[in-house]
Each structure stands twice: as C-alpha cells, then as structure tokens.
C-alpha cells in the first residue's frame, strides 16, 4: 500500500582471532580445541597479583591487518578496561582499546556484480583479548566454564555504515575474509569462532540524509546467516515503520533454526562498561620504522593480484577472480604458469582439472598430490604432443590419485601418443576391415560415419593415437579411388 522506498543502512563489527601461537597477555597456547582449562595460567585466570604483558607478535599481526585494510596505524595507542561481570570473564573486565585504538580510517573495496566498485570505509581497528566460554550443555543443570579462549588475541574491525544491502554485506565480508587470509593474520575459520560478525542495521526513506534508529544483530555463525539475518531485520523494521511504529534501539540475537532475530533480555545489555585506561599496561608503541617494515612485507592483496593476472597473463576477469580466491591457489597457479610457459593453458588446467578434482574429492589444495611443477610438466607433454589432451586429463587424475609424475604414469602405462605412420595405418586398416557394411555406407555418401571410424581407431589404440595424423591417414584410406 505504501509507495515509500526504504533504504537499509548497515555497518559491521567483525571480530577476528589473530593467528598467534600464544595469548595476547600471557604465554599460554592460543590453540583451539584443547581439553577445557588446559591452556591457562595466573594471568588469564585473573589470579590476584598477576599482570598482563603484551604479545608483540599479536601487535604485529594487528598492524598487518590494519595496513592491509588501508588504515592509518597509530604509533601510540592505549589499552583500556571494559568492565562487566560474567562468569567466563576472569578479571571482571576485558582488556581492549577504546579512545586510542591502534588503527583508524581505512577502507576495503568490493566489486559488485555489475563490475562497479563499492568502497566501505573502516572506522577503526582495535586489539583486544577474548573472553572464555560458558558451556551450558556439558553438566546437567550447571554452567561449565572453559578459559582456554580467555586472553586469545582478537582485532575488532568496525566499519562506517556504508553498506546498503544484505547481499552487499555478504559480498564485502567475503572480500574481507579473503584479504585477511592473504595477509595470514587469521585462519578466519567461522566454525572455530575465529571470525565473528555483529551488524548494526537501520532503514530510512530512500534519499534521506539522516539515519534511522539502528538495532544490533548478533549471533550469526556464517556469512549466509548474516545475509539472512539482515534481510529479516530490514523487513521487520520496514514493516514496523510502514505501520507507523518506531524502531527501538536494542540488541537482537539471530536464531538460525527459526530464521528470526529476537531481542536479548534487556538485563543482558544494560551495561555501563566504565571504560578507563588500563593502568597495568603502558602506552602501546609501534614506531614508524616498525610500521614501515611491516608495510614493506605485505603480500600482494587479492584485488591487485586479480588485476595483475588480467594484465600479465591476459586472463578474463572471471578467471582472474577464481584464481585469486585464495593466496594459496594464486601461488599455485603462478607456479604452474611459470614452468608450463603457457599462462592460458595453465589457467584452464587449474580452473577445470585442479578445482574440479578438489571439488569432487572435497579436499583442500594443500592436500592435492600434484605439485605445480608436476602439473606444468604434464601441460608441456600435452603441448609437445607426447600425449593427447584427452589422455592428459586421465593422466592428471592418475597423478592426483597416486602422487606419481606424469612421465612415470605415461611410461609405465604405455600411454605415450603414437604418431608412427605404420602403426596408424595398421589400426586404420583393421578398423575398415572390421566394419565392411559401414564402409559401404560411407562410400555411398554417408560421410558422417567418419567420426565412427575415428572413434574405433582411438579405441583400438587405447587413446594413444595422435588424433591429427590418425585422422589424415583414415581420410586418405577412405578417399575415393
């Protein structure tokens, strides 16, 4: 009934666990999945008298992430305490950053489906420690607490409200994850909680310059959940506003099973965190030289790499995008292309055969038994005519199954292409002799039977006949006398 157009406004807060071996303020392992409370010490247990000492490796990874996301890294930042009581928060406060975060003012672009580039600004990135975990399903009627995660280093990435659709948010998050993986700052594994997303969302009449009242949506365990939760919440707010209601500023929890977002109990969110500078930690200093050293060591990021793949290798945009999806795949492709000496062929092989195999076997590139060098050698064998392209595909699968080299497989299984005239003539003669009726029909003008003879010849040669030469010989024998 209403003709008003509503525009969603979305900002994201992304928590990313940094890939350090130890925690942010103590020497305990930050490894996931150990026996409960086995990675704890006086510091992360919050014992009386224990003090935090910052892990410089975590700082370095935070700086790397910030530089990769085009932020300004501050030489001096500060840790602050965020005070609240929760059973899995051992000190009664979380050490985080508040007024002086390590980085501000960045951006990350995402390419839309229509090819246009959308830039999402990053307001700030801060370093903080994670809390422990409350487990409600281990002991009947009780809550168990596992503090292995307490003190694990995180960065929180806060965007400006620059996103305008659930799909756009998902696309941007996918891009963000790709960049963070390229930077090797996190494993970004959402199932292990290494990457967690909260979203702030509001709607406003299209064209309005002011923001509507926002809500915060939490507990989304995948990018697809983010997209669904945002769509749900946008529809809810729009419906509310169209019926003349008002949006209440509140926090909602996404329930994936029911497909709805429900408000948290107000008690859980009525926190006054009483932030103040943590007196146990001096100002965090990362001097200019260190920042520049980290910047110099940044890898080429996916957008730039895809652009280079188009320019340097002449690949279509789609192929360049697929091949740069992960740093590992892009590295693999470049190694194949370099040794094979044919970037286009390398692209076809990696996109079709390598990705096809990984998809079929449901395994990771790191598990593939075909090295880039091995694949390049195979490509060269095909290019030289040692084996046919069709045979090459079979050889690739044998390589992936056995881990043996293409040359080994071709030799051991006698798969090398046969170009020997005498042998090809013999196979042609045998085929024609075996099918006199078909030969008669061919000679009466049914020329499409050529393909049938060719197929039989290839079968006879177990696929080894050089198709070009075999075809020429066959044509010669079929020609009218």
């Amino acid at each position, binding site marked *: 009934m209403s003709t008003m157009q509503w525009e969603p406004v979305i900002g994201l807060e992304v928590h990313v666990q940094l890939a350090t071996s130890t925690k942010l303020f103590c020497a305990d392992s930050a490894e996931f999945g150990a026996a409960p409370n086995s990675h704890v010490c006086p510091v992360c247990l919050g014992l009386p*008298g224990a003090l935090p000492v910052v892990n410089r490796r975590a700082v370095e990874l935070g700086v790397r992430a910030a530089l990769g996301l085009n932020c300004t890294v501050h030489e001096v930042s500060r840790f602050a305490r965020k005070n609240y009581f929760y059973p899995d928060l051992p000190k009664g*406060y979380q050490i985080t950053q508040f007024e002086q975060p390590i980085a501000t003012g960045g951006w990350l672009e995402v390419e839309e489906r229509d090819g246009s580039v959308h830039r999402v600004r990053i307001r700030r990135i801060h370093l903080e420690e994670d809390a422990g975990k409350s487990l409600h399903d281990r002991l009947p009627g009780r809550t168990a607490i596992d503090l292995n995660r307490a003190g694990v280093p995180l960065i929180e990435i806060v965007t400006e409200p620059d996103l305008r659709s659930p799909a756009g948010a998902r696309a941007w998050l996918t891009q963000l994850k790709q960049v963070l993986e390229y930077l090797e700052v996190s494993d970004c594994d959402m199932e292990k909680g290494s990457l967690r997303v909260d979203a702030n969302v509001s709607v406003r009449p299209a064209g309005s310059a002011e923001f509507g009242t926002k809500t915060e949506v939490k507990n989304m365990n995948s990018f697809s959940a983010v997209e669904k939760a945002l769509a749900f919440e946008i529809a809810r707010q729009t419906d509310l506003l169209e019926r003349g209601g008002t949006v209440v500023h509140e926090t909602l929890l996404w329930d994936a099973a029911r497909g709805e977002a429900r408000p948290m109990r107000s008690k859980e969110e009525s926190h006054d965190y009483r932030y103040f500078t943590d007196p146990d930690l001096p100002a965090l200093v990362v001097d200019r030289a260190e920042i520049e050293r980290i910047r110099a060591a940044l890898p080429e990021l996916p957008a730039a790499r895809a652009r280079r793949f188009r320019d340097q290798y002449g690949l279509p945009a789609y192929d360049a995008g697929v091949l740069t999806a992960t740093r590992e795949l892009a590295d693999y492709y470049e190694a194949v292309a370099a040794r094979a000496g044919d970037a286009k062929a390398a692209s076809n092989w990696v996109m079709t055969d390598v990705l096809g195999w990984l998809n079929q076997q449901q395994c990771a590139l790191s598990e593939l038994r075909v090295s880039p060098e091995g694949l390049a050698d195979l490509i060269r064998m095909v290019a030289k005519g040692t084996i046919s392209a069709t045979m090459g595909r079979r050889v690739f699968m044998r390589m992936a199954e056995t881990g043996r080299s293409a040359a080994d497989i071709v030799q051991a299984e006698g798969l090398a292409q046969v170009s020997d005239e005498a042998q090809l003539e013999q196979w042609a003669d045998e085929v024609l002799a075996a099918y006199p009726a078909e030969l008669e029909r061919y000679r009466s003008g049914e020329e499409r039977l050529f393909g049938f003879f060719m197929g039989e010849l290839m079968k006879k040669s177990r696929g080894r006949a050089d198709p070009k030469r075999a075809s020429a010989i066959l044509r010669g024998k079929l020609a009218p006398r």
Partner: protein
Amino acid sequence: MSARVPLLPAIAEDVAAGRRSAVEIARAALAAIREADGTPEAGLNAFLSAGGDAVEEAAAAVDETIRRGEASGPLAGVPVAVKDNLCTVAFPTTCGSRILEGYRSPFDATVVRRLRDAGAVIVGKTNLDEFAMGSSTENSAFGPTRNPHDRTRVPGGSSGGSAAAVAAGLVPAALGSDTGGSVRQPAAFCGIVGIKPTYGRVSRYGLVAFASSLDQVGTFGRTVYDATLLLQTIAGPDPLDSTAAATPVPDWLADLDAGADGLVVGVPREFFPPELDPRIARLCHDAAERLAAAGADVREVSLPHTEYAIPTYYVIAPAEASSNLARYDGVRYGLRAPGADSAVAVYEATRSLGFGAEVKRRIMLGTYALSAGYYDQYYGTAQRVRGLIARDFREVFATGVHVLLTPTTPSVAFRLGEKLEDPYQMYLADIFTVTANLAGVPALSLPIGTVDGLPVGGQLIADRWQEGVMVRAAAALERALAG
C-alpha cells in the same frame, strides 16, 4: 635519640661466617612473634600467618649453602616479614579479607623471589587494612594490629602489621605496599624508616592490586641503611610487569654516607597548614635546621596543588580499585557464598559477605566515578589534577631542589576506634603522603622525634628515579638527629 646501627649486614655477616645459623635466627623470630602477637584480642596481632615447615626449610637451605662454602646473599639468614597482599606459595595470601581467607597463590611475587634469592628467610605474612584500604590496620577482617609504642593506639596503615613487627623488634625488616602512604604513615606512627620508591622502580607482579597506577612495594627497617638495602634487593626491571621500568638501579648504599653538604632541601609551605599539630611542625623545622647545620641549603618552596591531593586520590584510587576487585566474584577461587542459584546471585552474595565496609565504600565510590555521565566530572577531572600535582613536583625539582622535607602525618598515632566512624577524618591521615603516589615520585619517612612519647615521622621526597639522593639526605638527617 640514640645512634642507629644497621641490623641487616650484621645478621648476614654472622650467618655467612657461620657464627649463627639461619634456622636458629628464624626460630627466635618466630618465638618472638608468637609471644608478641598473642591473640587478636590482646596481642600486637601483627601477623596473619607465620612459621611452618616452609620457613624451617628455607632457613635450612641458607645454612646449607653456607656450609657448602657457596656465596651467600646480602641478606643471608635475615628474617623478613611480608605484607599479606604480596603473593607467596609458602603462606596464604588473604589481603586481610574474608573473600580470600585461606587463599594460596600458586606463585611468589617477584619481590618475594628476589628476597629469597638474596638469602632472606620470609617468616610470615603481616596484617593490613583489607586490600590495603585504610590508614590504621583496623579494616582487617582478622582484627586490628596494635602500635607497639602504645597498644591502645593504631600502628597506622595499611601496612600496619609490617611496621609494628619491625618496631617491636620481631623482625629487622619487612615489606609493605604504599598506594597513598601505606608504608610511610605506619613507619611514622611506629617510629621506624619506611621507603616508597619511584613508581616503576619495583615490580608489582604478585602484589595484589588495589590502585595499579599508584601501588608500589615499599620497605621497612629500623635504619635508613636497612630499608635501603632491602629496597636495593627488590628493585629493578621485571619482564612480568610492564610498568616496572628498565631504568638501571644504582648502588644507593655506596653514597649513603656522603652527608648533607651541597644538598638543596625544599620545605613546601603547603605541608604546614594551621591544623597541623604545632609540635610536629616544630620537629620538622628542627630537622631542617639540623640538615642546614650539616651543610644543606634549606629553602621554602611551594607545591600549589597540594590541597587537591586528597579528593584527587579518592577518585582515582577507588576507580581503579572498583575494577581491580571485580575478579573476586566467587567463581574461580576464594570465598563463594552458599545458597546462591544464579551467577548474579553468586556475585551479590559473595561480595556482600566477603568484603568489609571500607572496601565496599571504595568500590561504590569508584564505580560511580567511572560511570556514564559522571566520568568526565570525576575521573577525568581527577586525572587532570593529577597531572598538575605531578607538574608541581617537576617544577620544584627543576629549580635545583634535591629533596623536599615535610611531616609524614598531621598527627601522632591515634587511638584504636577513634576515626573508624568518620571515613573522611581517616582519609586526612594520608594528606601529606598521597601526592608522592599521584606524582609517582619516591618518598620515605624516618623518625624525627616524639610528641607525648609517641613517634613523629619526617618525610623526604625526591624527583623520579632519585632514590639515591633521598636516602643520602635521610641518612644525613638520621645521623644529625642522633648526634
């Protein structure tokens, strides 16, 4: 006043030479403690725990080292008492609180480890105001400590147990902690020497936090030499405490007897307000004259923001405390009140039962000072004033002043119970000591005379990292007063 001979080197030399055994010295100290402490109702009540197998073993280990002819530390066999907010494996660490009654730390504080490494034998843990919050040691959950000079009076606080133990001769030296005067004020009330070093000079690892930006471990001795030797032993950087500075620790004892000649001594007029007991003011001026007679240049100076020190301190210290004490929630260790059936109920019941009135008062003050809408007005303002107080000190030391001489306290030791019902009067007991904590500068108290037979302390304050000139001035004054 009699000349004061250092106690610690004599003990360490006797033990090192095999003339006395560490075990025998520790046993004697423990016997004296048992006799003096008696019961909380009647005795000194300076210790919350003392003795045990760990003490015997530690002392025997020192003797064994010496028997094997190995190098013994500078404190070989010296019995030392440690305030019960410093973590120890060998004794409970209660902070004078029900909430940590019986709590055992799995680690030793860095200062405790350094004492042991120097050969000292820690004989027990001393009483304190709960979580070091107080100026009389009456806020202990385990009964007040009494002043050895007059058992109807308080020993000062919060390190009252350590001060009383040294003053009563139960141990020759002790550790305390000083957040707003908690080493210097009881040193003054008990007639001994107490040093609070520069903030960052001594590791806080294992010191149970009260107000982290103000807390420093300090030392007690009968003489300037003893308190300095103890400080020399525990000072220096610590990888476990990021606020412990990398600043090198000079040999303070080497210049201890360099005298007062050439020293510039400032006497800040703001430390002599009308309400100060005139007899204490007189003793301070006498002390200044003695220093002048010994060659010092004594001048009047000004620290104009001194009057804001108490309100500033009572915003910052409780604010930090409200956060530092959040961990005592009954979830992981310490007291858990029975019968609570939810997390929030556990917190409320445990903290209601486990904390005493003064601790609760400060948690509420601090929570309020940090809360939304009041932060700028209270915590923000207090931080700005703290900056001005620190600037006062920088400016006066920039004029060439080496040390400041002030009274340590506005009165002598008051009677047990006298100020318990009036927290603000109690807070004023720290009026001359809190500025040093707010500015992070080192300060000490040493005896400068008596009023009505009760000890009076004089305070010397130096610039950051200038403990050397401070103890040198103190030693000169100690000698001048004895002579």
